[in-house]
Each structure stands twice: as structure tokens, then as C-alpha cells.
């Protein structure tokens, strides 16, 4: 089990990551979702033991392998965790030499190295690229080679930073299929950072949201970076500007913050409801997706894009269709501020 405990990490004095606990369990599939600059890449580099946290520690199977007071992690724990960066680079040499690199540093016999390289190249459909050099590859091909290179060393934990950002749809499917096959073949934990919620939900067991270096206490949809006004308009009730709309929230905080509306706390209807909900927004359905069995994610444009989760039965009864009218209602107390 790979675990981050009490980590507070700074760049140039600015806190970029502040996480009490983050766990990647053996064989699990975890997705970290968040906007650019939310700390996803830093989190992955700490998990990969490529950086030492300024405060806190990283544990592997209960043993501290990196920490503010621990020495820099050696090659031994690092050989169990492999990171594929968002914009990976290939080392000097051919694609084959790149795939061989991690196996050779582990002292694996030549025949075994060749067998493993050809096996992983076939699985990721890059066998034709083996004799090529890095300047002969597209960005998407480099990304696939980098994933293959990481899979070749058979790590316990594979960390992927936006692994399909340069890939076309077909290449992304090949990549996710290869990951699924690998996980079916052996106990491989995968932790993936992405800004695409759909991809994250499609294959991850656990989706976590990261915003401003902090893990969100709620699911990753409907997160907004806001400026909370200083004066309350009535108790702790505040009207916060989110794009062209105003969201009512109960909070005593002021200044910059992240505002989250849990999708399960949004009432979906065709007409405005008479209720205590302070937030009622009329809009149109832009997307209906089935990301979990029995549940439908309803995405609507109400001035900003909001996502609500309803049961399949409710979606059917309401007759929700893309382009159709919809009303989203939620209480001010349902809005989370952190």
C-alpha cells in the first residue's frame, strides 16, 4: 500500500499540496481529477518518490520511504512505483532501448528483456515503432511508448499523469484496454491524474478531486474557484458569483476558496419547485451519461455547467433528453466551501 501522510509541500514558499492522507491500495484504480495547477503532478511526483515532501511522509507497505526527516528514497522502493509524466520524454536511443532501460537496470537477462519488450510492445500496439528514435515519433506515440516502458518493468503501482492527453480516441482506447488487461493479469495499482471526469469514472474504482492542492471532501464535479465576499447578507448566507450566476452558500469564510456542489444534493425537475432551496437554476440538458450502473449523470448548462446525479428511473420519468429544459435546485447548506 502506497500512502501519503500529513504532507504539506511548498514551491518557493507557496504551499502547493496540503493533504492529510492519500492512499493507493494494492490493485486499486484511483483517479485524481482537478484543473491545471491543482497539484496533481506534484502529488504524483511525491508518490513516485521523485521528490521529498517538505512536511509529512510517504509510506510503502507501512515503511517510511520518503519524508521531511527521512533520507531521499533509494532505487529499491522506487523500483516498485513507476510514473509516466504528462509530457513524457524518451531517453537517447531507439524505442526498443527505451523499453529495455528499466529491465536492464534491474539486471534482467538479455533473452528475458527481449521477450518482455516484445510482449509489452504488442499489447500497446507499438511493435512497429521499436526501431525508431524519439525525433521520429509523434507526441501521441511518445506517450504510448512511455506507458509501455513503465509497464515493461511490472511495477506494483503505476502512476499516470494525463496519459491520453496527446492520444487520439483509438490510441486512448488501446491504452486503457492495455491497462485493464494488465490489471486483470496481475495485482497492479493504478493512480491516474486527469482533467477528464468521464475517463476517470470509466475505469477508476475511486475518483478523488484535487483543488488548490487540497483533496476535495466531495466528488469532483461542480467545483468552482471563487472569491467569497467579506460581509454576510444574512447570518452566514453568502451570495457568491460563479460565472454569470450567483450561488447561495452558508459559510463564515471569506476570500479565495473552492466551492463545491455535490451532484447528489441537486434536485432535478422539469419545472421550478416551491421549496426551501435557495438555489434554483433553469437551463438545458447538455449531456446524459451512465457512469455507474443505475445512475445517470445529468449535465446542464444553467449559466455554468452543473452536474446532477439521478437514478435511471427518475431520468426516464422526467423525460430528460439532451437539449431539453431542466431545473436544478439545491439548498445553500448543501454547498461545500473549503
Amino acid at each position: 500500500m502506497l500512502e501519503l501522510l500529513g504532507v504539506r509541500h511548498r514551491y518557493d514558499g507557496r504551499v502547493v499540496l496540503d493533504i492529510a492522507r492519500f492512499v493507493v491500495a494494492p490493485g486499486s484504480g484511483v483517479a485524481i481529477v482537478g484543473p491545471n495547477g491543482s497539484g496533481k503532478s506534484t502529488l504524483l511526483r511525491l508518490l513516485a518518490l521523485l521528490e521529498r515532501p517538505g512536511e509529512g511522509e510517504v509510506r510503502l507497505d507501512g515503511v517510511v520511504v520518503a519524508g521531511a526527516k527521512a533520507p531521499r528514497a533509494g532505487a529499491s522502493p522506487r523500483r516498485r512505483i513507476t510514473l509516466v509524466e504528462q509530457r513524457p520524454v524518451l531517453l537517447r536511443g531507439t524505442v526498443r532501448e527505451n523499453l529495455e532501460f528499466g529491465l536492464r537496470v534491474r539486471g534482467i537477462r538479455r533473452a528475458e528483456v527481449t521477450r518482455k519488450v516484445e510482449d509489452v510492445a504488442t499489447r500497446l500496439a507499438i511493435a512497429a515503432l521499436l526501431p525508431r528514435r524519439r525525433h521520429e515519433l509523434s507526441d501521441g506515440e511518445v506517450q504510448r511508448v512511455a506507458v509501455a516502458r513503465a509497464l515493461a518493468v511490472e511495477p506494483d503501482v503505476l502512476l499516470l499523469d494525463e496519459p491520453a492527453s496527446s492520444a487520439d480516441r483509438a490510441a486512448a482506447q488501446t491504452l486503457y484496454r492495455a491497462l485493464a488487461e494488465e490489471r486483470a493479469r496481475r495485482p497492479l495499482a493504478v493512480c491516474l491524474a486527469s482533467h477528464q471526469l468521464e475517463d476517470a469514472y470509466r475505469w477508476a474504482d475511486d475518483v478523488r478531486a484535487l483543488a488548490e492542492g487540497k483533496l476535495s471532501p466531495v466528488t469532483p464535479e461542480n467545483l468552482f474557484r471563487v472569491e467569497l465576499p467579506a460581509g454576510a447578507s444574512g447570518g452566514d448566507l453568502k451570495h457568491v458569483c460563479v460565472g454569470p450566476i450567483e450561488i447561495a452558500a452558508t459559510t463564515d469564510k471569506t476570500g479565495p476558496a473552492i466551492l463545491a456542489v455535490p451532484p447528489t444534493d441537486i434536485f432535478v425537475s422539469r419545472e421550478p419547485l416551491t421549496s426551501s432551496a435557495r438555489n434554483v437554476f433553469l437551463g438545458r440538458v447538455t449531456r446524459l451519461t451512465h457512469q455507474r450502473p443505475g445512475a445517470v449523470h445529468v449535465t446542464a448548462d444553467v449559466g455554468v455547467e452543473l452536474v446532477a446525479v439521478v437514478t435511471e428511473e427518475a431520468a426516464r420519468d422526467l423525460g430528460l433528453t439532451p437539449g431539453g429544459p431542466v431545473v436544478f435546485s439545491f439548498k445553500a447548506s448543501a454547498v461545500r466551501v473549503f
Partner: protein
Amino acid sequence: MDFLGEGLRRAVALLVSGDGEVYGIALLTLRIGLIATVLACGLGIPVGFVLATRPFWGRRAALTVVNTALAFPTVVVGLLLYGVLSRRGPLGGLEWLYTWQAIVVGDVLLAFPIAAALAAAAVQGVDPRIRRTAETLGAGRWRTAWTVAREARFALAAVITTAFGHVVAEIGSAMTVGGNIRGQTRTLTTAVALYTSQGDFGLALALGVILLLLALLVNVALQALQGRGHA
């Protein structure tokens, strides 16, 4: 202009005839240059790696010291080394003053900061993802350093060439601690200075041409070692 033409003709004649003294001086210069370059780069390049890649207390100050040492006047280094190697100096017992070994020590002192500072710059110029990639694939410290060095090979070759060029062209320290003794510590630069002051322009020019050829030879050899430059 006549004396220039005459000097060049003399130079060619000396080179073609295989003059013993000229080639003796050239060989000594080459030997001193190679030994000093190997020692300075052997020490300086790893120091440059550490300065570029390892965060430690005082790293910035160390980089400043190394960069300042680049501008150290050669004659001052020679003077300090003279004091150290002279009979009353702390290393007088070695009896290296006015030997080729003393010239090597002076050259190493001069070329070491060049190797360290330029190697640090070369390594800092390598994409940091290369190092992270090697590490995340399980490479240890040495294998990671080797991987980074392969990426910086052109810049590191330039470090070696610059160090060698500095060593063979240096005169202040070689004159002070070597003494320009005929057949023992006379190098190409000290000989050029001597023969020019004696008015033997042809001989001085011949030695200058050899100096240029030596630099060219080392550059060609290093380029050949770098291979064809595949990415």
C-alpha cells in the same frame, strides 16, 4: 611583411624536417595537457554534476566560488603554487618546483573550475524529465548520472575541449612553476614567449602552428568519440 613570410617559411621547414627540439616541446606540452585535462575533468565534471543536481546547504555559494575561479589570473595561480612548492613551502618536500609535474598541478588548479562550472551548466541544461524518467524506471544514482551525461554529451565534450584548450594555451603558471627549462619544462607557450623575445620569429611561429594543430587534433578526436549525434 617580409619577416612574417620568412617566419612562416621557417615554421614549415622546421615542421617538415622533424626538428627534435620542436617536437620534443610539442610532445611535452601534449603530455602535460592530456594529464592535466584528465585530472581536472575527472574531478571537475563530477563536482559540476553534484552542483547541478544535489540540493545542499551552501550550494549557491559553491557555484559562485567556482564561477569566480574561472577568472583566476594564471600568473597568480602560478605564484601561489610557487609558494606552496618552494623549498620553504608546505609541499617543498616533494621537490616538484621547476618540474613538469608542477606545471600539471598548476594547470589542474586552473582547469578544475572550468570543468566544474561548465559541467554544472551543461547538466542544468538537460531536461529535468530525463533524470526523473531514469529514476522512476529504477536507475540508481550512477546509472541516472550516466543517462543525464549521455543527454549532455555535446556540452560535456565542449567542457573537455575548453579545459584542454585552456591548459595548453596557459603560460603564466607554466612559466612561474616550470621555469621554462630547455628539455625539461619548456612547453609550447613558454617557448613561443622565449623565442619571440629572442627575435627567433620563425621558431616561435612554428611552435604556434603546432599549438593550433594540437587543439584541432583534440577537437576532432572528441567529435569522433561523440558519434554521429543520434538523438
